[in-house]
């Protein structure tokens, strides 16, 4: 008998043709915080789903000792239910006859939130209406409230702000002290370093190593088989031709060719609306000057065609970017179909050439451009999405939190790509929930608060704390 | 009846026709002759008519009848969406001393009166004709009506009885043509290729469609026992080639007019509260007469038995009444309730 709280051995699991886990093993003990690290697609989430019984392994054994609670990577809050209903779904307050006493739901939920130090959320709010960060907080409270003996958190911090991360860390440590086994995944090495007692590295669906001490560069090498040089690339100086100029509500944006302009601030301060609006997908339809010509942008099509062209890369590539069952070729070509068509008919040969060219340029790893994009690894999916806009020749790139949940090696490639695109004269507007990125990758940073620009900083700022400080002035926790 | 007197003092009786669906020419004609009759004496002066269609939905028809009760009508004439589905509301009408007469697709409830032809006999007679023509030997196809309705069940039962009694007759296919020529044609076309030689067809409705399907498949048209569609009779008379050997029995559309008369007479106390069965008009390839029982200029979907004839005719109507619902010129309508 071992002393493990969770223990999986020799687990195989395939989805269709994709082998997500191949003979993978994983074990964690009570009273430890155990990080599970690996590239996108390494099989971390699949292992977690196997551990909690949501996915049945094709082969292998799994054992969990103690009450288990899991927060999944894809949020599992029920969007049409209120915070209270979500928190109390399994154990609602009941009266005689065992019927749910609906009017007790809200006070009980308030109590639960309060116990976990959350007082600024109304339990009556339908969770669909919450920001991603708040949804993640509710999700975490939901699992924490079950008083687990084994707690598994799959990328719990991806959507959280610094303060919220600290809040979560506190709870994880408290649980560890109570003898709970805490397992979590993250692509941010800082967090792993700060929290984990031990780290397990996965690669290609198998266990590589489990260690108590591991440096970031060692980890990256173990995860990807590559050694990475300095995380952030050097920036070329920006030009002075204005590429895009617009006023969205109270925010004035003036973006130059060759410039990477960072948009910082806490999550949910109007950054997303700003990006969507500039791309014609927001509520307001402002006048935008693109490459010298003024245009009213009413829909994305207008943005794509406006002047030197605008492109928008969303954080959630599966929901807002890619058409997963469609081919790499179709996905790449979609935004610019009419450029390679005669009388509405696609010129296949031209398309093939154009697509092939982009695939080679970005080194997208795919057996064929005819393969469904959904079968590609996350990083390669990201490249396809970027490739679509390179194909469109857009000179203004709106990149919204595109590295969220992306592994270290891919991020590294991505930073280089962005810096390179800027050096070629493209203008980049960049938002990231990871303030580090904004601090290092931008020529200039606008810090947003409540829909306004709270501060403008010259970049590269270098120290993320400065941006956080600017964002936080006059603000409280969560 | 008690109610008649105050109504009369105000002038007219209120009688409403509640029809289920108008899915074919028959129903349209049935309503047309009703409207025409209402515009002719004596009804013109005695009765305030209204007409309602419920689109084959029992609940809708039931609501409409309830509302008629609320309106305080004196009589309701019904072609029912369901034999049984209106029993409840009909009972309520009866309870309020409203005279209810159902016809064609009648209502079960015994408190109401019915006006109909003998539907079992309808089926029997067509079947017997086919048997006789085939001298008791041959393959027969049965094309039935809208499944689950009273008229369909009775006609089928009658036909089956006759065919079963003749061991030389083999029923090689039975399918529904839904009393609709287009449907009957499609269904027949689908069947024909896999059928052996067909010697006789028995059709509950949609007869011309069945014949067209035979012609299209380049099959000889067998002996046909069918309804009174003008299109069918054109073949019987040889107006449209080829001339077909057959018998045509029609459910007469003027059942609605007879029902109107029965309702009126019962309310006025001129007729006992009894149901009425009328003979059905019948023609064969021998007896069919152009201009009288078949009309070359009218469409195939027209029901050629819109009127009765002869010295014992129940009611005599003109063609305009059937095609347009306009009253027949200068005539008082006399309906013999037998």
């Amino acid at each position, binding site marked *: 008998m071992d002393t493990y709280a969770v223990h999986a051995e020799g687990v195989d699991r395939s989805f269709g043709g994709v082998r997500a886990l191949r003979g993978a093993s994983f074990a964690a003990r009570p009273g430890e915080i155990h990080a599970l690290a690996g590239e996108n697609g390494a099989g971390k989430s699949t292992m977690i789903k196997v551990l909690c019984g949501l996915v049945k392994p094709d082969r292998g054994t799994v054992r969990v000792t103690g009450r288990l609670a899991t927060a999944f990577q894809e949020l599992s809050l029920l969007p049409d239910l209120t915070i209270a209903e979500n928190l109390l779904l399994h154990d609602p307050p009941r009266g005689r006859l065992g019927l749910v006493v609906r009017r007790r739901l809200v006070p009980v939920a308030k109590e639960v939130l309060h116990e976990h130090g959350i007082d600024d959320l109304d339990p009556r709010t339908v969770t669909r209406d919450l920001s991603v960060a708040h949804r993640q907080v509710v999700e975490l409270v939901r699992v924490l409230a079950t008083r687990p003996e084994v707690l598994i958190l799959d990328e719990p911090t991806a959507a959280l702000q610094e303060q919220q991360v600290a809040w979560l860390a506190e709870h994880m440590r408290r649980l560890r002290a109570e003898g709970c086994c805490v397992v979590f995944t993250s692509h941010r090495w800082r967090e792993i370093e700060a929290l984990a007692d031990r780290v397990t590295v996965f690669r290609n669906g198998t266990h590589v190593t489990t260690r108590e001490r591991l440096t970031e560069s060692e980890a990256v090498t173990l995860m990807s088989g590559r050694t990475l040089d300095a995380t952030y690339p050097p920036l070329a100086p920006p030009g002075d031709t204005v590429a895009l100029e617009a006023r969205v509500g109270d925010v004035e944006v003036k973006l130059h060719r060759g410039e990477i302009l960072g948009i910082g601030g806490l999550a949910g301060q109007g950054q997303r609306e700003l990006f969507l609006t500039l791309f014609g997908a927001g509520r307001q339809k402002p006048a935008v000057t693109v490459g010298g010509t003024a245009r009213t942008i009413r829909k994305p099509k207008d943005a794509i065609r406006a002047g030197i062209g605008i492109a928008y890369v969303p954080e959630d590539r599966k929901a807002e970017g890619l058409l997963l069952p469609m081919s790499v070729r179709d996905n790449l070509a979609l935004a610019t179909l009419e450029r390679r068509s005669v009388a*509405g*008919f*696609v010129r296949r040969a031209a398309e093939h050439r154009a697509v092939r060219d982009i695939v080679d340029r970005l080194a997208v790893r795919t057996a064929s451009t005819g393969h469904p994009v959904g079968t590609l690894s996350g990083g390669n999916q990201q490249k396809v999405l970027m490739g679509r806009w390179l194909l469109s020749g857009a000179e203004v790139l709106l990149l919204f939190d595109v590295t969220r949940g992306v592994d270290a090696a891919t991020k590294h490639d991505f930073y280089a790509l962005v810096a390179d695109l800027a050096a070629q004269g493209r203008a980049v507007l960049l938002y990231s929930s990871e303030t580090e990125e904004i601090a290092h990758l931008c020529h200039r940073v606008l810090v947003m608060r409540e829909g306004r620009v709270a501060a403008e900083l010259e970049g590269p700022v270098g120290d993320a704390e400065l941006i956080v400080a600017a964002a936080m002035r006059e603000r409280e926790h969560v | 009846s008690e109610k008649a007197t105050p109504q009369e003092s105000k002038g007219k009786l209120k009688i409403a026709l509640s029809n289920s669906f108008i899915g*074919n020419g028959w129903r349209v004609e049935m309503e047309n002759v009703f409207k025409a009759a209402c515009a002719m004496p004596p009804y013109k002066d005695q009765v305030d008519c209204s007409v309602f269609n419920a689109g084959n939905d029992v609940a809708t028809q039931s609501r409409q009848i309830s509302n008629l009760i609320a309106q305080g009508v004196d009589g309701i004439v019904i072609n029912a969406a369901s034999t049984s589905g209106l029993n409840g509301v009909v009972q309520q009408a009866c309870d309020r001393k409203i005279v209810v007469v159902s016809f064609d697709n009648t209502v079960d409830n015994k408190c109401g009166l019915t006006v109909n032809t003998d539907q079992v006999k309808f089926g029997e007679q067509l079947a017997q004709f086919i048997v006789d023509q085939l001298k008791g030997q041959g393959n027969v196809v049965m094309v039935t009506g809208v499944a689950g309705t009273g008229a369909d069940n009775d006609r089928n039962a009658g036909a089956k009885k006759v065919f079963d009694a003749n061991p030389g007759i083999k029923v*090689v296919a039975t399918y529904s043509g839904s009393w*609709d020529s287009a449907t009957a044609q499609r269904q027949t076309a689908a069947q024909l290729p*896999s059928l052996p030689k067909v010697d006789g067809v028995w059709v509950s409705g949609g007869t011309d469609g069945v014949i*067209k399907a035979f012609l299209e498949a380049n099959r000889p048209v067998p002996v046909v026992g069918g309804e009174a569609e003008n299109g069918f009779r054109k073949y019987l008379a040889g107006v449209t080639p080829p001339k077909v050997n057959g018998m045509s029995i029609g459910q007469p559309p003027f059942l609605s007019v007879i029902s109107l008369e029965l309702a009126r007479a019962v309310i006025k106390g001129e007729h006992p509260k009894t149901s009425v069965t009328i003979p059905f008009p019948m023609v064969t390839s021998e007896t069919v007469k152009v201009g009288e029982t078949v009309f070359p200029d009218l469409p*195939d979907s027209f029901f050629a038995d819109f009127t009765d004839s002869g010295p014992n005719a129940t009611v005599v109507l003109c063609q305009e009444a059937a095609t347009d619902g306009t009253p027949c010129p200068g005539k008082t309508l006399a309906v013999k309730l037998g």
Partner: protein
Amino acid sequence: MTTLDTAKRVLAGPHRRVLYAFAAAATILVAGAVIHPGFGSWTSLRTMLVLASFIGFVGAGQMLVVLVGGIDLSMPWVLNGAAIVLTTSSLGQSGRLPLAVALALGVGAAVGLANGLGVAWLGVPAVVMTLGMNGVLQGLSLGLSKGLTCGSCASYAPEPLRRLVVGRLFGVPSELLLWAGVALFVTVLLTLTTFGRRVYAVGNNPRAAFLAGVGVRGVTVVLYMLSGVFAALAGITLVAYGGQPSLGLGDPYLFESIAAVVVGGVSILGGRGHYVGVVAGSVTLVAIVTLLQAERVPEYGRNVIYGLVILAILFTYGRERADD
């Protein structure tokens, strides 16, 4: 690469369901030919194909809207309305036929436009919009034709139109050539044009398609219009076939159009499917009914077996993704 590998790849690929659809049709046809002599003859096949073509037309329209996750419940009365418009405007005269056909198709397009605008611009759920529209059309058709008592409603289809069904070209009924034309049109539209790419994009993920510059609303409206046009085409050919419109003409085609689409391997969730599959689906449906009738299965049994066969087909290839 071995043949086996190729076979495996095709079976795993996007065309898998189309192949299944053809297999299903072939199975029923072969079973029919074995069970019932005469069922497999050319005359029999030809008739079944003609009957299948009507389902094929409504199926084309239904498939186009299903591809973008929609549904068209207004089919029965678009079909019927077009049939009535055709007869009332042609009055049986060959000279008026082109105008009449144009009018009938125009009615289909106009109704489809209204459906599309309601769904795409006003955000009315497709089920509600098209169900409501079916009622509106039924009311208008019945009301304006006074329940088909109008004299002109009772006209016949002009002779050239009727030859569509009776006439033969190289031994093939012209109706079937028309169907082949429709199949070619839909297939080319969906696979070779930029519009087709956009249709699949919208069907797979409307939000992502929108953010890639696809005019999602425009695409949706055009598809509903095409659906209306195809329903009208079915109405026109049915009049050609029966000579006259009747009021229940469109009723059976609502559920059959949906059944043909899914038996044809199109995903009801949108984004996946090809018209050739729907062609096979239409034939399958007609073949099942014909066989059941040929075997003289009583009405209740036909209903039960028809339902069970469709279920069986759905179980073989109509399931949603089986990932976890």
